[in-house]
């Protein structure tokens, strides 16, 4: 039987929590017998999520592959599909296709120092990575540099202590602090200096708004990180997720199948205007 990649699999919403003001994290379980194999994923991959009656949108997975077939996604309300997903309740059914895309370069990340740079909701696919990496912790160091507009918009705050216990260093910053904020104020790129990492070999993973990706890459290059060790997850309008609909096709690459994670070296090969570099 030919598998029809356009048909979503029904998934039940098991849990919903408000992550930050406009973002909810939902936990879903696909309603198929072989869910664990069918939805086996790597950190950095995404799903095409259907709000039945409204439409479909690509959304990053933010949970650990170890929890499969239970999957979490942090969904920011930005359009009609995400708005409908925000209205869904526990017990409702949504549709899932995927997982799609390439994910973060796990092999490389397991062997070297790791720098994660996240801006805003860009933390979501990096959380998946964060939850995957510590178990393979050896001599390697992991640092997370994360920024948001203000302290209340930092996602997954209750988990930071656990990540630190697992061996990660966490550096936070906000554009604007509040009365309780004692931490850094400013852009994420400021956090990237003086990190405890071997720049020759360290692997950096970036996800955030295009401008943040652009300046983070610029900073890392200045600091001496290698272009082929700097990765960013890029966004694109897309419909199919399998390289057919043409929306995310740039140069030789499709964001949905060749990305969404691209090395800076690969980005330089892409037509200008697409990659935020």
């Amino acid at each position, binding site marked *: 039987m030919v598998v029809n990649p356009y048909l979503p699999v029904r998934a039940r919403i098991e849990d919903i929590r408000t992550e930050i003001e406009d973002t909810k994290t939902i936990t879903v379980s696909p309603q198929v017998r072989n869910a664990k194999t069918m939805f086996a994923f790597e950190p950095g991959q995404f799903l095409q999520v259907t709000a039945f009656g409204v439409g479909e949108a690509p959304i990053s997975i933010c949970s650990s592959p170890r929890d499969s077939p239970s999957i979490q996604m942090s969904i920011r309300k930005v359009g009609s599909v995400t708005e409908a997903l925000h209205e869904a309740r526990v017990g409702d059914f949504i549709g899932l296709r995927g997982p799609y895309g390439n994910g973060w370069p796990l092999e490389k990340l397991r062997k070297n120092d790791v720098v994660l740079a996240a801006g805003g909701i860009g933390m979501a696919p990096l959380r998946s990575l964060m939850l995957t990496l510590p178990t393979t912790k050896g001599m390697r160091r992991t640092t997370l540099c994360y920024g948001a507009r203000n302290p209340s918009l930092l996602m997954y705050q209750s988990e930071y202590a656990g990540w630190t216990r697992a061996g990660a260093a966490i550096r936070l910053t906000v554009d604007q602090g509040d009365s309780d904020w004692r931490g850094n104020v400013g852009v994420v790129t400021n956090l990237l200096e003086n990190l405890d990492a071997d720049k020759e070999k360290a692997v950096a993973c970036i996800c955030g708004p295009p401008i943040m990706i652009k300046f983070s890459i610029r900073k890392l290059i200045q600091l001496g990180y290698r272009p082929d060790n700097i990765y960013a997850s890029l966004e694109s309008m897309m419909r199919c997720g399998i*390289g057919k609909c043409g929306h995310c096709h740039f*140069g*030789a690459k499709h964001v949905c199948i060749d990305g969404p994670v691209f090395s800076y070296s690969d980005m330089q090969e892409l037509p200008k205007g697409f990659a935020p570099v």
Partner: protein
Amino acid sequence: MKPEYINQDSLTRLVVELSSRGQLVAPVREGKSFVFSRVQRGEQVCLTYTNSTIPPKFTFLPQIEELFSYEVKSGELRPPKAGDEPVVLLGVRPCDSSAFSVLDRVMGGDRADPYYVKRRDRTTVVGLSCSRPRETCFCDAFGTGPTDGSGDDITLTKVSGGYVVRSKTAKGARFAREHSKHFRAATKREIDEFESESRKIKGMLASGITSEGLADRMGKSLGDPYWEEASERCIECGVCSFVCPTCYCFDVTEQVEGDGGKRYRGWDTCQSCRFSRMAGGLDPRPTKVDRFKHRFHHKLSYVPMAFNVTACVGCGRCVSLCPTNVDIREVIKKW
């Protein structure tokens, strides 16, 4: 397989046979132009046309098609009932047939599109070599015509009193066997005429366009101010995409009635300001210049890079139907 021959009367009978079985899609006259449509009566078919306004790609990629229907509340899906009765697509010009090879590369492969593949598999493409080019034809630039479209299963070429018939694929050979009573072996005189006709039509095309190294040339043009000026007259109507035999980009949309939902896909155009804009408003191609440029780069550089085939077959439809006279031939010549 040796060339065969079918005379005009036999072809007329074959057309009637196929259309009476409801299997035939062929060019029919509609007003001043020609369209490919499901033929009910054999006499509607016209094989002396130059080319159709809308390319026959819709046989495989309909303008709109249902992907599935569902119940909104439960998310229970119902895939569409796809027909698998055989279809004969008759009279396809070489450029349009060659465009099927482009679509095959994109829609086939590792992640094959099941809707496309099903339609493609059940269809026998009977190509028709050209007898006279239109002023806007430039298939010579890409080797996609004026004879032998690369998507043909079997090719007809007009000679005195009938057509020389050559099978190109197993499917084409099967078609010739199934309808063998209409065919006979071509004579030496018919083959000679076929060869001289082929040479003649090839000599009538001299676009002066070369596709050699085009993907690279296009790549180098990206930052050039040329695009600002060239795109000025474009009104972003998208007709160039909709009449293009290789344009395959599609949009996906939902329709809901009561508790029932349907997901459709339909032709899209990269000339639309919505094509690459994301829900949050971010858009890698926010200006008309960006979008105009993208169309040419996608066809002549990105598809070649990703799928190893050029997404232009020189049919000239976008040239003749653009309301503001944007001409892809000029763009290619420029670079």
